């Protein structure tokens, strides 16, 4: 197939599908229903390290986890979640919560939406680990 046809077709196809998905409401981020859901999301990534304490943020978009090994965070990856330990993290407050830089090529930065009280509380808690 000539590139003069292939390139526009691929470009239009990709952008058209992305716009359609967004219009269908399929850009919504995952939320954690409750602490049990946050616990399950953590164990899905780290099955050998059970959470000792789970702190859900106010909009249930993320959770702070404490385990025997250390602290970690669960956050949305689109309609799903992922989780990481926070060793070596650099944490900065933003207008809407916290920005976390991780020394991890597969999860370089996390943007957490927190209210003012949570921001201070989570930052203190996270800096103990990082």
């Amino acid at each position, binding site marked *: 197939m000539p590139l003069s046809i292939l390139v526009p077709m*691929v470009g239009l196809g990709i952008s058209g599908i992305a716009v359609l998905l967004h219009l269908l409401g399929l850009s919504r981020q995952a939320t954690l229903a409750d602490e049990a859901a946050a616990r399950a999301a953590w164990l899905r990534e780290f099955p050998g390290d059970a959470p000792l304490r789970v702190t859900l943020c106010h909009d249930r978009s993320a959770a702070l986890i404490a385990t025997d090994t250390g602290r970690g965070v669960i956050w949305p*990856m689109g309609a799903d979640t992922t989780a990481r330990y926070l060793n070596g993290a650099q944490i900065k407050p933003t207008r809407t919560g916290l920005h976390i830089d991780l020394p991890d090529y597969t999860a370089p930065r996390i943007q957490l939406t927190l209210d003012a009280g949570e921001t201070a509380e989570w930052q203190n808690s996270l800096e103990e680990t990082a």
Partner: protein
Amino acid sequence: MSDMITFPDVVNWAVPFFIAAILAELLWIAIRGRGGRYETRDALTSLLMGAGNVASGILLGFITYGFFMVLWEITPLDLGTSVTMIALCFVLDDLRYYWVHRFGHRIRWVWASHVNHHSSQHYNLTTALRQTWTGTFTFMMVVRAPLILLGFHPAMVLFVGGLNLIYQFWIHTDAIGKMPRWFEAVMNTPSHHRVHHGRNPRYLDCNYAGVFIIWDKIFGTFVPEMEEEKVDYGLVHNLGTFNPIRVAFHEWMGIFRDATQPGLTWRERLNYCIMPPGWSHDGSRETSTAIKARHMQTHPEASGTPGLPPLTEHTL
């Protein structure tokens, strides 16, 4: 010897079909409210990976094709281009695919290229297009060398490889349950391939087939989809980014970081490249074998069931 043979670039010609089928699957899910899940950024990443795969083929394809043409110059054999020979080439190339795919899960250097295909937590037709950008660097083209030395023309070998890839497109769906029994017995199907994309301990490292599932049955790597254990899609450690560049290169970066850390022997550095994913010099990480063993310690009742070997003194 015939070296001016051409075959159509079937993968590029299939692009309109790919787009139409994705729209059809999406419509089906939207109307029926079941049969899979879509998410915008995940699908966009998959589609960009697919576009990048085509681009890398255009940019780097000459390396593989040049290698094949050298082999074609060397071989005294020419099996021609009859329909029978194309069919035979298709079957043998599918056997080649099985082994390359198996190496892709068991040798970290090859996994570094293949991992991106497994990096979505979704399983839909866009996942099929989440393809590697770095396949050339795995040197797995050497596994095709016997086909060309046997007398199959390089253009034919690439043509049947394209057909193989197109076949595998439709099996990346949750919208189809099981096919008729005879079909499930011989062919790779959505059910068999869902299992391959599972991160459940039971479903790790199995069902490597491209078109014919018989290869897994012959070589002992077949695991059926279990009704009682829903497939959990994604990687053992799921990515925290949708950035296609990070998706494409993250395992290569991981190999580089691991193999260049101070204090290792040269053998340990080499092992970080060629041992199965999860291998580490100090045993601090888990391979799929270790993950299965750990799973059976907490679920001993599952030992000996498909995908989970019987408990032995070694695994206890």
